[in-house]
């Protein structure tokens, strides 16, 4: 029993060590490059100073309100996108006629970079939260719509025949067979849309100046606070990582039955 545990524990410990050794190596190199003057210190402060600044920020209420504002834009944008994209995907995915009727519109609107809508957003919504939410929602809408649509179309014909032969009604076929089968697609769509919504929220703050982390990054640049600039960039990265981890954990719970998650049990 004990030997077995050691045997399984050792490779895991080694895997963790391998993962973090790469991170440590990059951080040490960056630190040395800055300290030795290999990289101009004015633009590339040592990593330790970035993290020291980050540590200081963690005690500042203004920092936390910027985080909250960014997250607010992200959450509202993603939420609004989900409210529209999932039902729209369900409607389009269950009817070949509807899909054909709207396909061209979707294929036209989808490739528009959301950033191209910044002037429109300012024109219509001004420079506040609404603009940020609009941009995030627009960008997050498409991946979620497409994923939901694919999920509805990918229903297994044998599962559908099974439902029909056992006389499940239209509504039940939808709720008991088609929708559960589409959930993995919707989950993937949500994870992609979440990243996109965060990117657009920060972009709106940077470009339009809506309150949030993006605006703080710009302010740090203007004020020449390079340490702070990097600290905030690190925070946006950590935020994206944390949100992705959150969705991945949610998927593991909801989709425990799905082939992609079965090994994780």
């Amino acid at each position, binding site marked *: 029993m004990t030997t077995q545990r050691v045997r399984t524990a050792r490779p895991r410990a080694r895997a963790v060590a391998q993962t973090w050794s790469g991170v440590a190596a990059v951080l040490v190199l960056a630190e040395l490059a800055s300290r030795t003057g290999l990289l101009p210190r004015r633009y590339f402060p040592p990593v330790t100073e970035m993290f020291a600044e980050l540590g200081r920020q963690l005690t500042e209420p203004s920092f936390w309100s910027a985080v909250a504002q960014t997250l607010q834009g992200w959450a509202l944008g993603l939420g609004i996108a989900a409210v529209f994209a999932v039902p729209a995907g369900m409607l389009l995915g269950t009817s070949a006629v509807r899909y054909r009727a709207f396909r061209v519109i979707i294929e036209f609107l989808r490739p528009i970079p959301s950033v191209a809508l910044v002037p429109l957003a300012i024109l219509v919504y001004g420079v506040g939260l609404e603009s940020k939410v609009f941009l995030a929602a627009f960008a997050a809408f498409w991946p979620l719509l497409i994923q939901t649509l694919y999920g509805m179309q990918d229903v297994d014909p*044998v599962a559908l025949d099974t439902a029909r032969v056992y006389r499940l009604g239209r509504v039940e076929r939808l709720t008991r067979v088609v929708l559960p089968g589409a959930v993995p697609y919707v989950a993937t769509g949500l994870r992609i849309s979440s990243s996109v919504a965060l990117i657009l929220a920060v972009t709106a703050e940077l470009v339009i100046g809506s309150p949030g982390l993006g605006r703080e990054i710009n302010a740090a640049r203007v004020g020449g606070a390079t340490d702070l600039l990097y600290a905030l960039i690190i925070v946006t990265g950590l935020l994206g990582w944390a949100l992705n981890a959150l969705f991945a954990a949610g998927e593991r719970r909801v989709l425990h*039955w799905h082939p992609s998650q*079965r090994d994780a049990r």
Partner: protein
Amino acid sequence: MLDVSGLSKTYGEGRRVTHAIADLSFSVSEGEFVCVVGPSGCGKTTLLRCMAGLLAPTSGRVALRGQVVDGPPEQIGFVFQEYSRSLMPWLSLRDNIALPLRHKALGRDERNRLVEDAVESVGLTGFMDHYPWELSGGMQQRVAIARALAYQPEILLMDEPFASVDAQTRADLEDLVLRVRTAYGVTVVFVTHDIDEAVYLGDRVVVLTPPPTAVQEVLPVALPEPRDQVETKELPEFAHLRAHIFRSIKRKQDDTPDLPAPT
């Protein structure tokens, strides 16, 4: 009880038309075990789907106790060849088997009893809360059979149900089907491309021609009951029947020019 008369099914139209079934007639009596056997691509699955009301025939009709079948009738249970796709991976065994029972006017106790009896009769007691994908292929097909049994059909339609399991499992499942057929008193129509399987299981064997498909012959199987994997297959009658069907299919195949077989 179940009559197939003048059934034909064509796919496509114009020059790309495929005659899957040309003209099929046969009937199944109450309590009978009928095996339908034919060369691959002869429209066996199409026939079974028409019988289940999943597919509308191009002409002719399927009638259940005189009623024309124009949609899945509630007296019919179906076991698909693709068990892993026919079971819902997000539902446990219990929920998979109970899924078709939602529309039956049953109390909760009654429903649970039906599910538990069916699971017991296929020998999967203790796996109730497992998910289908945690089980082997043979066990998954047992779940699909249990689901059909719990539904309490008068007729069980089985579409090459054991085509994708190994030989030993297949023999076990064949005997399982014979057992539950008696226990549940159900009429069975069993489609297979395996002549031995058809002779071993059936009270009668309907032999189909290659496409465009018609009935080549209908053979009564006068083998003693209960059937036994070793003893039944040792009998001269068994060998005689399987040889007869084999030659019958072979002869017909040699007669007909090679047509692209629809899948």
